[in-house]
């Protein structure tokens, strides 16, 4: 069971990467980005296609990341240009429309057949307490932890981070002070797009490499982000990893066929916990 849990940590690391990006986007721009997974998948498929045609892996990865940065930035630009003053529901609905557009475009460009998936990280691993930890898991976990820590430090310690926090609270007041709100917004969306591509590239070898299936990775990531109530980067990291662990453990149990639905329980638990005061008050 421990080995199964460990296997789940690779997925958990990828969920955590996506969850931290979801929290970043929610806190800085007030949007639930349902298209984050598809944004990453698009870049990943660009990478698959280039590699399939004989392109060097490094170049394919670079161009794939660049594609997702561009796709993320494009949505950010549209948000800043046309939906800057729109409420959360409208902005989040726009990302659903973008998700549908990306799915359509993805199926059209890359087809519906699964692609051969190159491994970004070698097949080796290390022995730890009698368990074999693959390099891919270590890299994914390291990147997730680095991202959560890096984003938190960036927001606290840098001028651009302070600007981002300011625009998250009062975008108009920030603009009146000369803060380049549009450029920052596009930057955040583009960055999230790039990280999502990295997460999908890392997890893709362990999943069915289909555009639609991989795009749904955003759902367990949302469950992870919900653990931190879309506010906390460390809790989003823990949430993402926890969901991966649960999935891993469940894969060794009779409920294995339903393991990917378990994050619904995590979401439910997080929502009930967030509403505990109201629930207990009502019960009294």
């Amino acid at each position, binding site marked *: 069971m421990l080995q199964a849990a460990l296997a789940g940590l690779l997925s958990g690391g990828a969920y955590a990467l996506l969850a931290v990006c979801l929290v970043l986007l929610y806190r800085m721009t007030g949007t639930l980005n349902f298209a984050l997974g598809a944004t990453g998948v698009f870049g990943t498929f660009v990478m698959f296609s280039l590699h399939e045609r004989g392109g060097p892996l490094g170049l394919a990865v670079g161009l794939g990341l660049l594609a997702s940065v561009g796709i993320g930035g494009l949505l950010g630009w549209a948000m800043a240009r046309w939906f800057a003053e729109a409420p959360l529901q409208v902005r989040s609905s726009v990302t659903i429309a973008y998700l549908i557009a990306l799915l359509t475009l993805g199926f059209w460009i890359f087809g519906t057949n699964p692609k051969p998936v190159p491994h970004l990280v070698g097949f080796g691993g290390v022995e730890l307490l009698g368990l074999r930890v693959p390099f891919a898991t270590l890299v994914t976990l390291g990147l997730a932890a680095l991202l959560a820590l890096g984003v938190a430090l960036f927001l606290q310690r840098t001028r651009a981070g*302070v600007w981002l*926090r*300011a625009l998250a*609270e*009062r975008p108009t007041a920030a*603009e009146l*002070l000369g*803060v380049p709100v549009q450029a920052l917004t596009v930057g955040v969306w583009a960055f999230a797009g790039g990280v999502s591509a990295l997460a999908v590239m890392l997890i893709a070898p362990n999943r069915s490499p289909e555009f639609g299936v991989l795009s749904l990775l955003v759902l367990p990531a949302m469950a992870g982000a919900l653990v931190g109530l879309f506010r906390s980067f460390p809790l989003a990291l823990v949430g993402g990893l926890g969901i991966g662990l649960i999935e891993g453990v469940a894969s060794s149990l009779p409920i294995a066929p339903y393991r990917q639905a378990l994050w619904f329980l995590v979401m439910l638990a997080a929502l009930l916990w967030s509403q505990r005061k109201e629930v207990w008050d009502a019960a009294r």
Partner: protein
Amino acid sequence: MSLEVRGLVVARGQAPVVRGVSFSVPPGEVTALLGPNGAGKTTLLEALSGILPAQEGEVWLFGVRVERASRVARARAGLAHVEQGRAVFPSLTVEENLWVGARSGLEEAFGLFPELEKRRRVPAGQLSGGEQQMLVLARALLGRPRVLLLDEMSLGLAPLVVRRLMETVERLAQAGLAVLLVEQFAHLALGIARQALVMSQGRLVYSGPAQALLREPGLLQEAYLGRLEVGA
């Protein structure tokens, strides 16, 4: 002129709120913008800084037309707008609030309002109303503006704090800043202003020396009621 406005028309939704207003704000003095509630003063300021679009007319900032320019471009051209309601960034500390608008160090802000330095690590949302108003004024000044739009600075503040803020604004104007001051307490604004503008129902009904309105309170009353012609 620092700021010049020609035939400005501004609407909220479909309804025009500012109807063909023209005036100028010279450097080195305070221009008071007065008028009853709903006269269009805040809407006018919002159009000048780009929060609201101008339907018609021109806005000139140091000889450059800016009515189509973005808020950021206007801010970088030297226009600062301190909005009504003390728009601090509540979860950011005093220091972080100041850094948002600063072009260089924070010493100037702490020199103007030493109490802010004592509370530099406190989240702005925990400051008193007076301290918050000092913070937004100091934050705007750190962007090194040449034209300052101030909207209802005294709202909900103790008289002592208001007097201090007014004295600061007067000193800033004496140092060369062009200030357009919207103020509910007309006598306070007129006390530090050289020129006064009075709006009523979206139109400018008085444009002239502030002292004339102070000397003849009846004139101000007539202006508020919209019974004066511009330049009276």
